[in-house]
């Protein structure tokens, strides 16, 4: 052994270990995060009885305030999320006054309104796209552990990306090389292609993902500069008016002129959210938040008006370069600024990321497979975990959609049952697959996942009046696209099952150097 090995060998070693330790969780994060680019669309698909049309922001705000004045006049704060092209309902919730029976600052349950009529919408109870979105960074674990684990895995991902770039000696040559049906070599090629093809995306999405929760992961620079951490948020994003109610009633001014004033100040920027404090009190205030979808920066800024007379009270300060950078990173990660074409690109790049993690995990086993020999314990664990993550999680996601259509709409607690269906399918299938030999387990779990996805459009057509043919006829792009994605995913999983059934396992690549087995490090550097 040389005293100082090159850079590549330790980087190859750390790359495979980082990828192995975090790989299964990263795959789940990548896949559910990718689905979350269509969070509002999934929610709309999961409430097929709703067919609301988005209304103009001023109209939606007016109807929401009228509903709240009638139904929650004594609450301390109203939150109104205005509809847009993708979320067609107005979403509202309120916070009661701390002195009432409820605990201080607890938010009440979210209610959705038809923006045109201002009436509460009745639809089946579901978590919708929110389920994948939350799982993506909370991993269905209690707060704060899920977020910490997700952050740790993201950090491993960042390390794996940097060490992976160092490891691949001919990275851009490898990008053009894909050798099918050659066992280990094919998995390596596939890993390289998916990784290099979208490398800027992978690096961007991993780093910006860490930035989305930076206040939790890395609050120490705030602590170093501010005696009171809250001061940072005020300096960076402006002051929240937290005045107490005066006790003198004063009707809120009409909302439309305030929205018009904000839109003019933003040179046409759309309002996304209204926060009304102390409604219908002489000391009331209305904060209008700017929609982040027309700019890269996800934090659009805000303006606050006095609720009693419509005076402009305050606005968020223009962001400096660093605050702007953080906001743009957030925007790049969430992709809310993306129009349909870019959104589908995000979706496909996210799938590429999932495939990169998946092929990396498969490469780990392909490289260590020895025909005829009894596989060592760790190898068998990794092999089984790969089946449980790569084939069974997609099946669980399909079960979530199927449960949405099969559980009666009026069933109490049905949104929780949908989530249970996802995890019973995922982990149940993973446990059942242990009863089968590895090769059969791959074929069967992939086939189950394919059938589950293929049955989503069928079950949708049988249980709703929004099946594929009728959606095509009525020009319902969302429902058509959803069914087509389900069928495409089913086809990909079916193809994977077919490949698993028809391709004989290939022995690991012969090492170039004959003689005694080369060191594991040498092998990794060679192959990885």
């Amino acid at each position, binding site marked *: *052994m040389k*005293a*100082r*090995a090159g*850079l590549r*060998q*330790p*980087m190859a*070693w*750390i790359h495979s270990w980082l990828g192995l330790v975090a790989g299964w969780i990263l795959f789940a994060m990548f896949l559910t995060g990718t689905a979350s680019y269509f969070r509002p669309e999934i929610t709309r698909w999961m409430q097929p009885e709703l067919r609301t049309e988005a209304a103009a922001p001023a109209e939606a705000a007016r109807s929401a305030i009228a509903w709240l004045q009638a139904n929650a006049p004594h609450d301390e704060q109203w939150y109104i999320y205005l509809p847009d092209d993708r979320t067609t309902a107005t979403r509202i919730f309120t916070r009661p006054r701390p002195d009432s029976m409820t605990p201080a600052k607890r938010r009440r349950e979210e209610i959705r309104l038809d923006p045109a009529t201002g009436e509460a919408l009745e639809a089946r109870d579901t978590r919708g796209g929110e389920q994948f979105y939350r799982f993506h960074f909370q991993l269905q674990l209690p707060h704060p552990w899920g977020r910490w684990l997700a952050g740790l895995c993201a*950090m491993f991902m*960042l*390390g794996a990306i*940097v*060490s992976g770039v160092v490891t691949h000696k001919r990275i851009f040559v490898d990008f053009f090389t894909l050798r099918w049906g050659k066992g280990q070599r094919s998995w390596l090629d596939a890993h390289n292609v998916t990784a290099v093809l979208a490398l800027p995306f992978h690096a961007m999405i991993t*780093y910006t993902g*860490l*930035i989305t929760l*930076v*206040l939790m*992961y*890395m*609050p*120490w*620079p*705030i*602590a*170093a*500069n*501010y*005696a009171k951490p809250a*001061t*940072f948020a005020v*300096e*960076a994003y402006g002051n929240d008016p937290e005045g107490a109610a005066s006790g003198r009633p004063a009707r809120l001014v009409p909302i439309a002129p305030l929205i018009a004033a904000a839109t003019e100040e933003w040179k046409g920027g759309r309002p996304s959210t209204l926060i009304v404090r102390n409604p219908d009190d002489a000391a009331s205030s209305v904060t209008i938040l700017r929609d982040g979808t027309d700019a890269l920066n996800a934090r659009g800024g805000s303006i606050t008006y006095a609720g009693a007379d419509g005076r402009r009270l305050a606005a968020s300060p223009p962001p*400096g*370069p*660093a*605050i702007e*950078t*953080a906001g743009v*990173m957030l925007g790049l990660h969430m992709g809310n600024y993306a129009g349909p074409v870019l959104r589908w690109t995000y979706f496909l790049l996210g799938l590429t990321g999932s495939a990169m993690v998946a092929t990396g995990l498969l490469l780990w086993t392909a490289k260590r497979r020895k025909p005829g020999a009894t596989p060592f314990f760790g190898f068998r664990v990794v092999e089984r975990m790969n089946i449980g993550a790569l084939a069974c999680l997609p099946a669980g996601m399909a079960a979530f959609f199927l449960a949405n259509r099969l559980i009666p709409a009026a069933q109490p607690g049905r949104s929780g049952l949908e989530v249970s269906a996802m995890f019973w399918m995922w982990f149940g299938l993973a446990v059942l697959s242990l009863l089968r030999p590895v090769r059969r387990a791959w074929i069967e779990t992939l086939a189950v996942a394919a059938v589950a996805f293929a049955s989503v459009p069928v079950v949708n057509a049988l249980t709703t009046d929004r099946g594929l043919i009728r959606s095509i006829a009525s020009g319902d792009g969302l429902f058509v696209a959803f069914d087509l994605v389900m069928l495409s995913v089913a086809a990909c999983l079916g193809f994977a099952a077919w490949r698993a059934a028809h391709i004989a396992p290939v022995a690991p690549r012969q090492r170039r150097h004959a003689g005694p087995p080369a*060191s*594991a*490090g040498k092998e*990794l550097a060679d192959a990885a």
Partner: protein
Amino acid sequence: MSIRKARGGGWQMAARCLTALLGGYAAAAGIASLGARLLPIATAEATAWGMILSFLIFVSLGLWAFHEHRLTRIALVIWGSAAATIGAVLLIGPRA
């Protein structure tokens, strides 16, 4: 000889991993905080730059811990810079 042996036995490997993960985090937090405290620009801006760049510092230190052979050198550099920067931040105190 495997990388693991080349890098020392089990205990040394565990020490290396802990230094990379916990020490790397502590050093990244310390360096980012000290930089945010000393950077002569607006406080909120300096704070945000510190937070944005902290993960870059973390990943660089973490990977270097597996590139460098001598464990004592790694431990000295990573834990030493963590202690020095965090100590300096605590000594100087917050701006406001």
